[in-house]
């Protein structure tokens, strides 16, 4: 064991080093604002999995990647809110994961997209589209989880991967989130992702066909995800 004198010096050095932590107040605030869902069985695992995996990628050096990324990509930044998690990777891609248990705040998501350098229009209860549909969507956005098919499950968390540099100039990402109140998927949520012409688009409060695309958009021009349905929650 080190001598008492050395131990005192160590204590002093550690106290000074710990006090050097930059802006802990903001970090504390971010930590307390995150959505941890204590003691909620399997669902809390599903709810927290993106953030957990994201930070584990940093901590464990595992690296996460979407369809665009390399396996060596690691998390560089994460924003987690109750409704969504936005994670940035070292390869320049970002992932967005939606939490079906929380209502999406479109302004918050749009602002966070901006912070990540993703030009976007985010709406709830409507979707903005352009005609003709801009090209290049499949190079800019993919869904690692695939588009939803069949009955959406309540524990399911849709994820998309975005490659911001691949968003063509003059276009931006349009995200429309709907609470479906009628039809086959009543009670579920539907999130649609398409590209729009920044200077020419219209918004409609009619959700696109869950099994199709908005008018004027081909199958490769967008992604529609069904989630948060009344199926087994896993909890």
């Amino acid at each position, binding site marked *: 064991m080190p001598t008492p004198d050395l131990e005192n010096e160590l204590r002093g050095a550690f*106290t000074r080093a*710990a006090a050097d*932590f930059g802006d802990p107040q903001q970090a504390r605030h971010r*930590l307390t604002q995150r959505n941890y869902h*204590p003691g909620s069985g399997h669902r809390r695992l599903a709810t*927290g999995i993106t953030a957990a995996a994201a*930070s584990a990628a940093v901590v464990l050096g595992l690296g996460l990647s979407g369809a665009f990324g390399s396996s060596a990509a690691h998390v560089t930044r994460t924003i987690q809110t109750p409704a969504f998690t936005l994670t940035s990777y070292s390869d320049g891609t970002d992932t967005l994961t939606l939490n079906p248990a929380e209502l999406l705040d479109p302004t918050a998501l749009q602002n966070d997209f901006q912070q990540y350098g993703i030009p976007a229009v985010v709406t709830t209860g409507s979707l903005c589209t352009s005609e003709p549909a801009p090209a290049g969507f499949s190079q800019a956005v993919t869904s690692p989880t695939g588009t939803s098919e069949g009955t959406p499950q309540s524990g399911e968390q849709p994820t998309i991967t975005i490659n911001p540099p691949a968003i063509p100039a003059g276009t931006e990402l349009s995200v429309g989130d709907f609470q479906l109140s009628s039809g086959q998927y009543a009670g579920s949520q539907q999130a649609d992702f398409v590209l729009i012409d920044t200077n020419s688009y219209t918004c409609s409060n009619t959700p696109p066909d869950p099994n199709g695309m908005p008018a004027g958009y081909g199958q490769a021009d967008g992604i529609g995800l069904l989630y948060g349905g009344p199926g087994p929650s896993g*909890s």
Partner: protein
Amino acid sequence: MDWAGNATVKHEFDRFTAEVSDLLLRTGYLMTGDAKDAEDLAQETLLRVARRWKRVRSMDRPAAYARRILINLVLHDSDRRSRQRAELQPGDGAFDTSDETAARALREIEDVAEFRWALAQLPARQRAVLVLRYWADLSVAEVADVLGCSAGTVTSTASRAAARLAEALAHSDPAATDPMIRPSLKGPTYADPRS
């Protein structure tokens, strides 16, 4: 238990998060030398505590449990990288720095970044021993409990770690303490004296 239907549990965990955040952030900062990594570690720790909250909430010291998770996250990461192979084996403490010399090196630190850099040169388990013993102010027995080793291992590791820290301080390059080129804990950046 459904968290959404139990506001009390959620409130209780939120309060715990507020209370323990500073401890986790600073411990993570000392263990990684990087504020962002510290925040990621703290978040991962809280997620793991949340998953076990039903059990953790009844513990005498849930904050200590959370700190243990954080330390283990760093150690497991370290183990994965095999950076600290046999760090507790004989030969690892091949520094003949005396305690007096080590104490003097610590006294002469001019920039706290220099200390952080030197700390980052230590294997994770040695770093953990020093952080828990001299920042968290845990007893030798408590450190041994957190790290799952004997009290004797803690004391011998503390001595080796202090000597190694002093050695790193003696050879620290002021330029290396620049945050932009500071050695990252994510890579095997320190020179192993045994090699």
